[in-house]
């Protein structure tokens, strides 16, 4: 059996989610190819070629692929699927957007956000905001799967696969890219960060969110996350949202500040190695999953924490 992994990238750099998805793919088959669909992606493809275990890297380039328009990516992947028994994509906003199309066009099921490969037909995936794990068996000849990258270790980079260009496909006839607003940040990316500092509704304003959460994150070299309440209120941008319907993270250290710990938030961070919660309400549900809880007003706790970190040489 041969497996196609669709790379996660922004045309400029390859994301670690790809390495993790390759690990999931290698659990299915030794024959793993990576597709880099985009525009101006030669450097990304060269990077993907280094991932250990990858047999071949395919590049497909067009304007529509450069904007990762769902119809275009799906058409490109479907055209390749005669040569593959499975396609695996990281469950990012791009992956979730085009992969179900691939499944529908191949008339097979999509298996969403797997966290484990049991065998070639059987996978484990969280359902109900991670309150249950479903083991699911597919009868399809071709598997179309999205992968929860946090559940897999990243493949190493000791390979040297060949790179070859393939047909980018027809693009998207009925939809047009208008614009994007991509926030550039020097901080690590939320999905792959070792430490995440998240702020909740308690921040009360965007200014307070910047003033409190960001310096702490910078001190720890952490990515910044937020609860839905903080995003809805405009304290933080939408792609900071951690949770069932936002991003799923599993860093070494997750620090939740002024976040109550609703089921939907826990779904996105409860697989973190160590969880710290700072909340002034001792009964907040977040403390039920926290390894270390500090019952305190963040207004004093965070400055104290900054000082304690400095004192500890951090």
């Amino acid at each position, binding site marked *: 059996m041969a497996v196609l992994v669709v790379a996660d990238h922004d045309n400029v750099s390859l994301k670690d989610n790809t390495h993790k998805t390759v690990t999931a793919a290698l659990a299915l088959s030794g024959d793993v190819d990576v597709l880099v669909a985009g525009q101006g992606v030669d450097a990304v493809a060269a990077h993907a070629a280094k991932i250990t275990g990858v047999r071949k890297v395919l590049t497909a380039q067009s304007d529509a692929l450069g*904007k990762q*328009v*769902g119809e275009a990516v799906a058409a490109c992947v479907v055209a390749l699927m005669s040569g593959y028994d499975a396609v695996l994509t990281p469950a990012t*906003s791009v992956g979730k957007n*085009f992969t*179900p*199309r691939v*499944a*529908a066009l191949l*008339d*097979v099921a999509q*298996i969403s956000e797997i966290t484990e490969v049991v065998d070639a037909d*059987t996978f484990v995936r*969280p*359902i*109900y*905001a*991670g*309150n*249950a794990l479903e*083991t*699911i*068996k597919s*009868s399809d000849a071709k598997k179309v799967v999205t992968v929860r990258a946090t559940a897999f270790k990243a493949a190493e980079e000791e390979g040297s696969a060949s790179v070859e260009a393939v047909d980018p496909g027809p693009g998207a006839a*009925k*939809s*047009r*890219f*208008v614009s*994007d*607003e*991509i*926030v550039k940040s020097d901080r690590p990316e939320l*999905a792959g960060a070792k430490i995440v500092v998240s702020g909740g509704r308690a921040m009360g304003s965007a200014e307070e969110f910047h003033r409190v959460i960001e310096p702490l994150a910078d001190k*720890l070299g952490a990515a910044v996350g937020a609860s839905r309440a903080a995003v*809805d209120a405009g304290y933080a941008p*939408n*792609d900071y*949202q951690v949770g*069932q*319907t936002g*991003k799923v993270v599993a860093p070494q250290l997750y620090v939740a500040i002024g976040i109550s710990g609703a*089921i*939907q938030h826990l779904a996105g961070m409860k697989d973190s190695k*160590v*969880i*710290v919660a700072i909340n002034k309400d001792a009964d907040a549900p977040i*403390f039920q*999953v*926290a390894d*270390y809880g*500090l*019952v*305190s007003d963040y207004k004093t706790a965070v400055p*104290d*924490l900054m000082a*304690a970190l400095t*004192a*500890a040489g*951090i």
Partner: protein
Amino acid sequence: MKVLVPVKRVIDYNVKARVKSDQSGVDLANVKMSMNPFCEIAVEEAVRLKEKGAIEEIIAVSIGPIQAQETIRTALAMGADRGILIQTDTDPEPLQVAKLLKAVALAEGPSLVLMGKQAIDGDNSAVGQMLSALLDWPQATFASKIELTASAVRVTREVDGGLQTLELDLPAVVTADLRLNEPRYASLPNIMKAKKKEIALKTVDDFGGLSAPHLTVVKVTEPAKRTAGVTVENAAELVNKLKTEAGVL
């Protein structure tokens, strides 16, 4: 212009799902059920488009047990005009749902299918994209803003890293994200009015039958539980524990 809004009856978002002891699934007996929150957002958006005069009719459609009539009734109370229930006691997979919705869309001829980005029970986030592919109508998922004209819809989408705006020819499929709007509560007069609105009771055979399933659930288990840790007295103790005990600093 017509808008079709598929709505799903799911466990209420405030309820914590419990796994059945025989591992056959999640226990839904005597559990509060509600409209999937993302479907509510889709209904709300459709109602706002109607209030602005951009569309004439909103049809809410649900595939599920007879109780899903209540879900449709909620949509009608929010402002949808009529409902269709495709009754089934099976728990259809996203592809099966998408195929039935395709048949509904072809029968009703809406200019727009406005639906949730994800159902919070199965967490699949698949039906909208599948429907779009099956109909060969363009798609915009994870919408946080929708502008409708006579021939196109402009959608701002929540994506990793920020926002993306696409323009789609109509008819199109759009899936709603959290920031699209805040759904209203139905008022009492509107709840009363909704009782008189029509819900057509249909079977899967009215829409081409239920296609064969592709997936079987082997088992449903509980995830490993996290236990509460310790309470620290102050920030200094916290840093000390993170350094020496947890080893994460």
